[in-house]
């Protein structure tokens, strides 16, 4: 085993890939931050209603610890396995074909549903901008389709274009956050953050008592979810063994700072936590308050559009690579692994993911018009993310245990304890979500999609292509499960 362990992934022995190597540290940082930035603009604020300012603060700090453990562990695994499969590569190496398939599928669902949830915010912002400029109304389905068409086309246009657009949108979205922070400081009033009615057993800081913290956890996750998409850039990065870990860690540092700034400042500005907690656009509501009528609605909508477009763009990138890797290895139909001849982008995976996401959004909109479409999609995406975190952390722990001498160019300073912490918090968050009846539709949706994927895998009995880098690495390091069917019947 020790000989095989020494193989690792030296810089000079990188596998051939049909993708183009372009990204550097800041491109990866931009993709990671842009994927998460919509979470700082809206979605988190419902946690103020469930837990109050104090409850949301505690939940956010716990979730920050979970993501720190996740990011350090992923940095280690991505440096050892710098392939575009992400969760699939790690699951495959640790738990064989089934492990790879389940982790990869949870990851696919996470990105496709996140993008579908964000396209609704993109559509809302586009509608406001178009109405402000031309006083015309455009049907929302058409706006979603346009958004999908534009950003899928940019992603097919090449990794260089994708990275530059991501960097531009990230800098814009962070600049808006910075302006918000500067405007919010003189308007900050702690009593506004504590203005929720106190229930029996609560306090002004925790109006719903200790249990409120638990209900705020899924909203706190929305502050940082999908940061892990940075690991999918490995095959399009120069020197991925060192660059990807740096990109992930710079990204999470930026986002933790942004999340804490937004949570504290946005909760404590007029009109107060109660109104902010129920707002569709909490950040823009704050802007409206302290800049008065000097900022037009159209400009505010443009601010929001920059952030939502940034996230939407990065999520499309992520499912493109994730679907591509599973298809390349033979887990999904081979047609999905086609790459563009000149632009070197996985266009069929991008198109398929976009179609599925669009279909999911439309289906929920028409099947359950009485509910918030984006809330259902967000719940499904967060649950998928948690399932993929649980599987990835189990992979990390299994690899640390079984292959302690594997070549790891970057080693997590938090060690197995960090990964175990993430695993424990993710498991608790998963249990909390299962207990909450309002998440039922989203979880049901996730369970149906996940179940269908597993059924497909069992019926089709695919035989992975041992030549793809993720499979080759796993086979070189372990002798776990080459035949998915046999393994599944064990």
């Amino acid at each position: 085993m020790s000989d095989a362990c020494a193989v690792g992934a030296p810089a000079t022995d990188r596998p051939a890939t049909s993708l183009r190597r372009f990204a550097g540290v800041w491109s990866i940082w931009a993709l990671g931050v842009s994927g998460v930035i919509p979470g700082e603009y809206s979605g988190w604020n419902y946690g103020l209603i469930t837990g109050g300012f104090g409850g949301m603060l505690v939940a956010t700090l716990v979730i920050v610890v979970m993501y720190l453990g996740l990011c350090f562990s992923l940095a280690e695994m991505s440096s050892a396995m710098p392939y575009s499969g992400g969760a699939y590569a790690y699951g495959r190496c640790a738990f064989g074909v089934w492990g790879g398939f389940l982790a990869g599928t949870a990851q696919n669902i996470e990105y496709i549903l996140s993008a579908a949830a964000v396209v609704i915010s993109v559509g809302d912002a586009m509608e406001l901008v178009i109405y402000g400029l031309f006083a015309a109304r455009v049907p929302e389905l058409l706006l979603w389709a346009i958004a999908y068409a534009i950003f899928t086309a940019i992603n097919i246009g090449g990794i260089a274009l994708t990275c530059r657009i991501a960097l531009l949108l990230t800098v814009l979205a962070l600049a808006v956050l910075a302006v918000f922070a500067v405007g919010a400081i003189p308007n900050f009033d702690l009593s506004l953050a504590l203005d929720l009615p106190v229930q029996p057993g609560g306090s002004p800081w925790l109006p719903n008592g200790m249990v409120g913290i638990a209900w705020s956890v899924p909203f706190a996750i929305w502050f940082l979810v999908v940061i892990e998409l940075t690991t999918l850039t490995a095959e399009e990065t120069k020197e991925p063994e060192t660059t990807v870990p740096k990109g992930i860690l710079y990204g999470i540092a930026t986002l933790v700072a942004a999340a804490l700034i937004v949570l504290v400042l946005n909760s404590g500005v007029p009109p107060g936590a109660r109104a902010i907690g129920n707002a569709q656009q909490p950040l823009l509501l704050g802007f409206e308050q302290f800049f008065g009528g000097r900022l037009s609605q159209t400009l505010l909508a443009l601010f929001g559009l920059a952030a939502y477009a940034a996230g939407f763009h990065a999520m499309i990138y992520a499912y493109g690579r994730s679907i591509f890797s599973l298809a390349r290895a033979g887990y999904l139909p081979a047609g999905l692994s086609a790459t563009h001849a000149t632009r070197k982008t996985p266009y069929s995976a991008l198109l398929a993911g976009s179609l599925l996401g669009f279909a999911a959004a439309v289906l929920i909109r028409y099947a359950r018009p009485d509910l918030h479409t984006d809330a259902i999609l967000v719940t499904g995406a967060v649950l998928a993310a948690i399932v993929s975190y649980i599987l990835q952390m189990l992979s990390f722990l299994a690899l640390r245990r079984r292959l302690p001498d594997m070549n790891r160019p970057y080693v997590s300073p938090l060690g197995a304890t960090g990964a175990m912490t993430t695993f424990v918090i993710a498991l608790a968050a998963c249990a909390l979500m299962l207990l909450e009846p309002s998440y039922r539709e989203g979880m049901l949706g996730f369970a149906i999609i996940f179940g269908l994927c597993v059924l497909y895998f069992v019926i089709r009995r695919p035989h992975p292509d041992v030549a793809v880098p993720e499979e080759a690495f796993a086979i070189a390091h372990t002798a776990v499960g080459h035949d998915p069917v046999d393994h599944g019947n064990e």
Partner: protein
Amino acid sequence: MSDPSLGVPNGLLEVISLAGIIIFSITSFSAVLSSIFVKKDNLFYLGTQVILLSIFLRIATHWTYPGWFAELFASAEQQMQMITTLLLLAVAYTLDMGLKVMVWEGRLGRYDQKSVPPLLIASGRVIIYLFALLIILQFVFDKPITALAALSGALAVILGLSAQATLGEIFAGIALALSRPFRIGDWVKIGNHEEGRVIDMNWRMVTVETRDRVVLCVPNRSAADQTVHNFSHPNRAIRLTETVRFSQGEDPRVIQELLVRALADTPCVLADPRPAVFYRGPKEGVSEYNMEFYIDDYEHNDVAIDDVWKSVIDHIARSDFEISFPRRYLAIQSNRPPVPGAADATETAAAGRANSER
């Protein structure tokens, strides 16, 4: 604002301390889980996490006591005492585990697990926990520890005096292990001892095997006090010099080229750093040249010199040159016929001059 319920934080510091308690309870639990399921080393993290947990528990005592711990402890002070005890024990545990992971099994154990005697580790642990216990008794529970401290101090003195020599060896061994003047496998010459290869280093002595397969046991204190020549570290390449002489009439450049070729053709001579030949001028009737070359392992220097000379002789045999040796001329001069009567004195003087020239 209405009155907050008991045991529910109400204030920034209280909320932060609650977050700290939740987070570090989870991380402590995770450290235990990962030490069971992944690797025992994670117990080191347990100590640091429990320290942080107890710090937050201390900060939170004023609001956690009435709501959470009123049934467990008689008063908030008692709760504080327990938390402080936990904190100090966690500090002692972290020190103990830190020494184990970083020193005993880390720096000192990296090359040789036997380098630290179990007795030393055990005494280190006893001292750490004893010290923690004394601090807890004195500062947390306000119990006088003078008698206990005096007793343990006296015990330490007795132990120290009776094991003075052995302790000296142990500490010299630790100094050697930390400063690493040599490692196992290095070729060394310690003081005036014969040179040889280090085959073992333990808590009492360094064992060196000489070329004649004789084993030298050098006590750690002696090894730490004396000058050490290390032929293998920081890198194994070492330079050797051999001298060769040719007749004075030969062109030094041609000779140098020939000798460099001969060195380059010797398999055990390293190509990098390159071998070099230096002309040292005419000496004692011949021209002297120094051949300087590198070999990669001092252990094989005899073989290397043997190979070099064979190669040099081969190259010279194929050329028009030949090796010369230092020459000395003896001139004996006689000036005039011996004077009768002074013959004995003249003979004695000439013989003396010839002897001194020879």
